[in-house]
């Protein structure tokens, strides 16, 4: 692979009235390169190209973007296998601050809204709470979320009701605390998710599962919450 072509979404609020697409060519593409490596080299060509990134190994969740129409993390997306020109845009729906950088406030708002912290009413023991490996296993697939926003910004239900639908990432967190054997706020948490919007805008479209870079399954988490609600009702 010698060179690769890119088309990248550009928007600079200080000079542009609207977004545009800019073409780039990257020479000397090495095998094994990830998209983030390519973007960093393109930034050397054009310093104004702006995107977030940090750890480079898919754990900090900074570099979520829309790559050839689908959401993913640039740092763990191999260049090999991307159709050219590689079209890169910001993740859908969130307001664009500049180029590929979006304002994630709305996303974080939903995250904070589900009370993503352990709530314990009983006095705490001197040592650790006991939790069996089986109970702990229930948190697998939930606690690993890196808040990159790939899922929520790829969810049509979030596109239509961004202010009211909590979105897959926040609901995954809600589930993470609901199923934690140490948490004692099950009833409040469930009650808070009632109503037609917060949880029930989910229509099992599963776009979230399709794009989660950590291979998590928010739809399964949402199912778990629904089941807990049904149980709670009965």
């Amino acid at each position: 692979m010698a060179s690769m072509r890119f088309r990248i979404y550009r928007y600079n609020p200080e000079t542009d009235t609207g977004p545009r697409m800019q073409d780039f060519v990257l020479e000397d593409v090495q095998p094994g390169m990830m998209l983030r490596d390519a973007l960093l080299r393109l930034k050397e060509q054009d310093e104004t190209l702006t995107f977030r990134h940090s750890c480079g190994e898919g754990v900090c969740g900074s570099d979520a973007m829309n790559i050839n129409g689908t959401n993913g993390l640039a740092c763990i997306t191999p260049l090999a296998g991307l159709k050219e020109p590689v079209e890169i845009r910001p993740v859908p729906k969130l307001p664009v601050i500049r180029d590929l950088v979006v304002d994630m406030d709305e996303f974080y708002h939903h995250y904070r809204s589900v009370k993503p912290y352990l709530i314990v009413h009983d006095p705490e023991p001197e040592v650790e709470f006991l939790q069996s490996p089986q109970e702990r296993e229930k948190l697998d697939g939930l606690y690993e979320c890196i808040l990159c926003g790939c899922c929520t910004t790829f969810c049509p239900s979030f596109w239509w009701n961004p202010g009211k639908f909590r979105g897959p990432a926040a609901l995954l967190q809600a589930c993470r605390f609901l199923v934690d054997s140490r948490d004692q706020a099950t009833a409040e948490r469930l009650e808070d998710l009632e109503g037609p919007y917060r949880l029930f805008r989910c229509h099992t479209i599963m776009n979230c599962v399709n794009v989660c870079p950590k291979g998590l399954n928010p739809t399964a988490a949402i199912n778990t919450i629904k089941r807990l609600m049904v149980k709670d009702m009965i």
Partner: protein
Amino acid sequence: MTFRAQGLRAWLLQRLSAAYLALFTILAVGWLLFGEPVDYAAWRQLLGTPWISVLMALFFMALFFHAWVGIRDVLMDYVPHLKLRLFLLIAVAVLLLALAIWSALTLVSVYRP
């Protein structure tokens, strides 16, 4: 069901009605595929069978509830303008209610000579 159906109840209702509609559809398709072609008298007689009437009544109930939740979801998703959405929701509700009454009267009508 209240107009402002809660999330869980609406969701459950849609699933339960779906299950019934699915079963009913299988039966109906079976009847269509393997049953004899009917004339008017046989048709009236069929729908005049009490247990068929019950199945039909349940079918319509499930159908309208299912449609209500489904269309409500569609409007909530695609009609961001709140007043327009409210108007459409009311229109759909009125329509479904009217259809429910009409189908109920129709189902009862076979028992009148």
